[in-house]
């Protein structure tokens, strides 16, 4: 009878200890999941911050900038860059600027959507420089879009500038 009682106690304690261990394991998992969900939010916030700061200064970087103008994109240079864009892809889904999309859109004078390529340029209004992902969150900035034009009547070359937008897309971490 005494032996049975003691065995019962040991069984009770073993069950209790298993329950305590499961409880701690669950609490641990909860802490980790809360921690990691915060990490994803932090990573997305950092991506957002990067995209906003990048888009505000991208037009001044040497691959985009116009001669002697600030906040201006040289479309002729961008067309040359578009032809060399593979050199700017550092691996499968990473590129020199660390964002998933870079797009330049002419907003004034407006017109129907024509994507820029070697055939349509300069009579086009959307230039997709990097388009790795179609979804994501966009940061944008207004810029001047300038290119060289030849005036055949007066035999002179001049800078033709229009109003545009540069869009940088970054991926939301799921």
């Amino acid at each position, binding site marked *: 009878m005494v032996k049975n009682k*003691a065995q019962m106690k040991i069984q009770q304690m073993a069950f209790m200890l298993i329950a305590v261990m499961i409880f701690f394991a669950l609490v641990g998992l909860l802490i980790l999941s809360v*921690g990691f969900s915060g990490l994803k939010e932090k990573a997305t916030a950092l991506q957002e911050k990067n995209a906003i*700061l990048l888009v505000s200064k991208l037009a001044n970087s*040497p691959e985009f900038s116009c001669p002697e103008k600030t906040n201006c994109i040289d479309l002729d240079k961008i067309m040359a860059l578009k032809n060399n864009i593979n050199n*700017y892809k550092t691996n499968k889904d990473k590129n020199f600027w660390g964002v998933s999309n870079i797009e330049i859109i002419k907003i004034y004078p407006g017109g129907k959507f024509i994507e820029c390529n070697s055939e349509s340029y300069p009579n086009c209004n959307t230039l997709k420089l990097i388009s790795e992902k179609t979804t994501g969150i966009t940061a944008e900035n207004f810029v001047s879009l300038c290119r060289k034009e030849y005036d055949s009547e007066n035999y002179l070359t001049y800078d033709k500038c229009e109003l545009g937008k540069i869009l940088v897309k970054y991926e939301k971490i799921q």
Partner: protein
Amino acid sequence: MKKISNKNAQMNISFGWLFAIIVGAVILFLAILLATKVIKIGQSEEQAVGAKEFGILLNPLETGFESASSTPLQLRVETKIYNKCSPSGNFGKQGIQTSELSFNKWSALGVESSFENKYLFSKYPTQGKKFYIFSKPFEFPFKVSDLIYLTSENEKYCFDNAPEDIADELSQINQANLAADCLNADAETIKICFNKNCDIRVYYNEGYVQKGPDTLSFEGDSLMYAAIFSDKDIYECQVERLLKRTKQLAEIYKEKDLLLSPRNCKTDLGADLDLLISNLENAQDYKVISSVSELIEEIKNKNKYADCELW
């Protein structure tokens, strides 16, 4: 019979206690292990976020046409910033790692945050609570990038007998740890001299900096500052990366030149850009910057007087 039963009960109680103590110890051990792991993960998360944030904050230093600009950076705790540089790939890589001082101990290095479009010049590591970030464009002959110089408030520099434009620039930047002259310099201040030997000697016209046994070649003021503020290995690696970007930009300008020629916009730069590209491709090390300096000057002048400027 009664005696035996009592003995059994004693055995049972002591086994129960033993069992509880062992399992309790295991639970406590696992809990402490988990807690330390969680703290370590949290610490390395903080460091990774800090390193990434630091890199992102360097974005606004793309200066456009400003000559140079300086920004202070105040951190929460004493931090070591490790500037990592790798020259492999089309552009090489800039890495940043940090370690923080907590309870008088330096934490293990955090996760490396890397960027392809940044060029940071500093000591390895640079340590402090307040840092100064100063940037200046590097042109070779077109703008290649803005170079970023990172110094801590603990590193003080003074420039003795610097050429007038450099002394003016330093006064204009107004960075607390940089002095345009060495008149009030204390013993800890690193003296940079232009016409006599001291901690760092700059041979300005000859284009090299002498730092102890190391000789670092430079072209232009932005690389001169880079050679002064950074360690030899970092300097050489970053200049190699800059030359890689120069080559890519030269390819783009060559293509732009072809694109513009039908629009009555001739520059006569194609052959020179080709020569620059092949020189950079065949370069053994960063010292090619000195050997192509004449070609760079020629390209610069041709672009300046061309019908249409390429940059």
